[in-house]
């Protein structure tokens, strides 16, 4: 079973890579096509905010990319399921498990947004993040260690982590939208409309923020059960609070004059930086969470 989990993980990783390759081809061929159609006088069909899927012909690669991303998602879910059957708990006992979960969450949330907005160009940023996560997992021994006592509160932790990966996934998508938004200033061709990117970034945080709140609250419940205090300013907790505050600030920034647009987009970029800091925090600081080996 562990072997099957590992093979699924590898298959998932390869699929993500393949999906990125398709997206790159799709993006490149749209550029070529647009030049050609422009020459042919057909540019008018691609209204200002052309995106890959708008162009019928070459975007077949974009659909392949999405299809393979779905495949990757399924492989990774399978991998986590196999592993959970063996270990009897959710993916939270070490960074290997959690990184795969993180990547799965990122891909899952991306696909959710892809279905809704059809902006595969987001995948060009989101999927490499997932791929890096999976490659990072590669560097960590995949052994299934039994749980230390503090982690034996299974249900609470499984939910805590499941909610966390959704939150992190949405933050990755909002990050991608914000990066594309900011790239607009640099004349990068074939970007979706600014308003659309702004909207996607916001939509993602609207899902992510309540989930992130839930992550922190569940963590507090767990800490209260295990240590008799719901909050101890341990660096991991604090980092998640920093993340939460940044996204909270973002939600207000969107309705404050002078903060909409670019500054709000920067908050999304910084917010995702804080998310990664929270996730990788253990590598920088100790704290109670370090004995969970978990991000």
């Amino acid at each position: 079973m562990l072997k099957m989990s590992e093979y699924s993980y590898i298959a998932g990783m390869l699929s993500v890579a393949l999906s990125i390759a398709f997206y790159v081809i799709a993006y490149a061929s749209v550029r070529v096509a647009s030049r050609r159609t422009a020459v042919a006088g057909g540019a008018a069909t691609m209204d200002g905010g052309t995106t890959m899927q708008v162009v019928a012909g070459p975007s077949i690669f974009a659909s392949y990319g999405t299809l393979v991303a779905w495949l990757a998602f399924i492989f990774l879910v399978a991998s986590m399921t196999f592993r959970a059957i063996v270990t009897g708990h959710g993916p939270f006992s070490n960074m290997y498990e959690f990184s795969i979960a993180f990547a799965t969450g990122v891909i899952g949330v991306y696909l959710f947004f892809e279905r809704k907005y059809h902006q595969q160009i987001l995948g060009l940023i989101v999927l490499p993040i997932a791929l890096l996560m999976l490659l990072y997992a590669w560097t960590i021994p995949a052994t299934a260690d039994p749980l230390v006592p503090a982690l034996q509160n299974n249900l609470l932790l499984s939910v805590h982590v499941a909610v966390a990966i959704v939150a992190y996934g949405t933050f990755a998508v909002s990050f991608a939208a914000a990066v594309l938004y900011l790239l607009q200033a640099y004349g990068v061709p074939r970007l979706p409309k600014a308003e659309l990117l702004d909207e996607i970034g916001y939509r993602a945080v609207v899902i992510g923020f309540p989930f992130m709140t839930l992550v922190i609250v569940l963590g507090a419940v767990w800490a209260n059960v295990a240590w008799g205090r719901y909050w101890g300013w341990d660096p991991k907790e604090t980092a998640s609070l920093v993340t939460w505050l940044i996204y909270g600030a973002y939600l207000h920034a969107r309705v404050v004059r002078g903060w909409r647009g670019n500054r709000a987009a920067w908050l999304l970029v910084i917010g995702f930086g804080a998310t990664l800091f929270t996730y990788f925090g253990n590598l920088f600081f100790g704290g109670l969470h370090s004995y969970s080996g978990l991000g």
Partner: protein
Amino acid sequence: MSELSVPTSTAAQKRQVAPEPQEGTGGGLTISPSDIGERLWRIFTSMRTALILMLILAVLALIGTLVVQAPGGITADSQAYQAWLDSITPKYGGWTGPMDMLGLFSIFSSIWFKGITVLLTTSILACSVNRFKGLWKTAVHPRTKMTPVFYDRAPHSETIDASVATDAALADVTKTFRSHHYRTVVERDGEEIAVYADRFRWAPFGTLMAHISLVMILVGALVGGTWGFNNGDFAVPVGSTVEVGNGTGLAVKATAFNDSYYESGAPSDYAADLVLYKDGQQVAAQTVRVNQPLGYGDINFYQSFFGAATDISVRDASGAALFSQGVPLLYTAQNGTERVGQFLLPEQGLTVIVVSPASGEISEVIRAGQVQVEVYKTGDAAQPIATQVISQGQPVEMAGLTFTFDRERQFTGLIVAKDPGVPFVFGGAILLIVGLFLVFFFPSRRIWTRIVPGPAGSEVRVGATSRHDATFGPDFQKIVGEMKSSLVGTRGI
């Protein structure tokens, strides 16, 4: 959220139509003293203020993760604190002094952190008060009729030339709204019919709920900090009874401790058998594990750590027992090669320190079955009055007293916690989450319709402002599309 007003610029039209009463405009240059109150109110109810306070708080918290924080309680003991500062000086060098002055080593109890939290709380309360009336009015007494100008300028606006008379159009419009689960309010004014439709009109109170719940959580933290305690290094040697203190009248006896391990050597379980006494009477007994605390009233005992203890007994010259208990070796010294415990002999004014090699360490001075006992005058840690290595079971004379090292034991390390703020904190947390899900997943919607007689029968104008709810646009189009097909469609196809 004020009642809707008409947009004045296309820039405003892009995002939202309602002006932001929350935003301090910082307009006028002249300030009269009587304005100061109003100015403060403006500042505290401004979302820009909220935004900036949140970001400052984030930066302070970030510093708290990047800069080493002093262990809790150590700041109260200036000597220990200085020693701690010295220990981190190699890391921060000449910055140590200034950083200490700025409170960076205890950022979460610093004036900065507390000050910003107080400002943010004030701001949250001000905003909530500020918004309540508007929210209430919008939900209960919404403005139902809009002027034609509104439809000219609303970001979502559509005009339908209906082929039916106004009353038939009204029936169609109402039906369409109903089928989309909107509530409708109809107002007639001569020939003109105004239809106001809304959905999830209570959901905006979720924002209010979320903000108030933040205050509730902070109140809970304050209550806990004032009336609670958390003793994180409460060590009970097996066989000994230790007073809880803090005015609880409780004492804990550990009757057994077991630590078990996986084959890999990783710990699998820690379990301590505890008996709890209140004023000498047994009131509870339980095996306490990680995640399985013993609760008595609002006081909880958590298994946290464990280690070695030594049973020491002390007699005076007449042979009367002064002390006979396990001494937990709670501290480490000499780079972790030694474990150290301490107890007091209050009547003699002595502090006794017990030193043993850490497990796995071999000491030239203290051999297996031995401990080193150091006797100090309480309050004078500079020079021991007497120091001696003593072997198990062999009484030794020191400082006029007889010390015996009876045996090695384990101690169980407990966290003893009482936090009367917890109900507020978790109550607030639940409200916060419910509030957030309400705001975000049940977006409130409001659509106005104006029906007047028109050339083909009637003219139906539909309009809505959108806050920053992106899903509204498509929904609006769908509803209007359905209206169109029923109002005009009859002859079309």
